[in-house]
């Protein structure tokens, strides 16, 4: 993560550039002396329009937050809790069901080849169903975490600069995962799991800076979050 200098001072970048001290310093000076580039067209208009749109949609959220945060938080956390409890179960259930079916088929003495094929099929189905269940669980968890992050966005106290940069980096990584998900659907499960892990990182970051509202309900909600983590 970035190491922003507290005083923002610039280190002597040119010194000892790859073992070429004099050349390094001179190159740094020459590069810094290059004129600043100009974007060519005014990007402010588009940005201003987007900002205006965002702030209009953000205002009601702030008001809702002021009064509705304990409810939203509790609901989000409860959902996350339920999802996290459900996550390991679907594959286990599927395994049990299919395992009891497969031996019954193999009891026929004349059909050992068939039974092997059946077992293989059963295993394939079992794997597929397990993967599908895991995928669904990861998607649900991802949704729940995103919802929590969205609902608590305006309640978080200002983040220290480094955390803010970290949050920005995690969001960028999530964006990268989304790009990969769109281009390589065959790797959906590991990508969704990676997405969940990144969202959990973001949640931890947000939560660590979360302003504790001084209401019993919020404290209870945060206790719930602690239990999840």
């Amino acid at each position, binding site marked *: 993560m970035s*190491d922003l200098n507290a005083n923002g001072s610039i280190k002597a970048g040119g010194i000892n550039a790859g073992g070429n001290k004099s*050349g390094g310093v001179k190159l740094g000076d020459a590069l810094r002396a290059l004129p600043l580039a*100009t974007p060519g067209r005014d990007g*402010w208009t588009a940005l201003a329009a987007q900002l205006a749109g965002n702030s209009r949609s953000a205002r009601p959220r702030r008001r809702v937050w002021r009064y509705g945060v304990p409810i939203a938080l509790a609901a989000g956390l409860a959902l996350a809790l339920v999802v996290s409890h459900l996550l390991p179960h679907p594959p286990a259930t599927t395994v049990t069901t299919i395992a009891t079916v497969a031996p019954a088929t193999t009891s026929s003495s004349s059909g050992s080849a068939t039974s092997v094929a059946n077992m293989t099929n059963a295993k394939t189905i079992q794997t597929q169903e397990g993967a599908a269940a895991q995928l669904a669980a990861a998607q649900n968890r991802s949704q729940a975490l995103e919802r929590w992050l969205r609902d608590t966005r305006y309640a978080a106290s*200002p983040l220290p600069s*480094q955390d803010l940069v970290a949050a920005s980096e995690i969001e960028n990584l999530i*964006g990268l995962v989304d790009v990969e998900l769109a281009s390589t659907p065959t790797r959906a499960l590991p990508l969704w799991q990676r997405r969940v892990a990144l969202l959990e990182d973001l949640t931890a970051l947000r939560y660590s800076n979360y302003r504790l509202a001084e209401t019993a309900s919020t404290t209870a909600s945060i206790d719930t979050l602690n239990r999840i983590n």
Partner: protein
Amino acid sequence: MTASSFQQEVPQSMIDRAKAGELDAFERLYRMFERPAYTLALRILGDAEAARDVLHDAMLKVFQRIDQYRSDAPFWAWLRQIALNEALMRLRRERNFESESDVDYLVDDAAPTWVHADASALERALGTLPALTRSVLWMYHVEGYSHPEIAQFVGKTTSFSKSQVARGTARLRVILDPQPLPIAAGSSACLI
């Protein structure tokens, strides 16, 4: 030594106004940092359109999060970090994150050629470097990041950062001042 072009003092009152959602404060901040952020993105990506996108996305991110900004680091440093992250992320996304092949360049003590090169020649030469080498060189020389910091940004080692700076420097030297190859003894080459 000239400081990074980002290094501009921003009045706290302007940050406060931006935090309060005043669009004209946003605009003033945008105008202050538009060219430094665009230049950084352009040097990293080497593509004007992509650099404009990065400028837009980075500024949007800055303004959307300004209410979360605490003044424990200068505003310019915070904004620069976001712009840098956006640019590097885009570079990575476009699978343009490969460094040049493992070729050693000689680093000698001859007079540096960029002292005599004009700005446009230096810019052109810079543009011929592989994107990652150019990015490392820029982050180190112009933005003043240390090798460990750069290593962290690009997900490589400190030695990698050092070697990219050395190679980029040597390569610029070659591009800006191509020396005719000496003719080896016994060569059949004939200059007429």
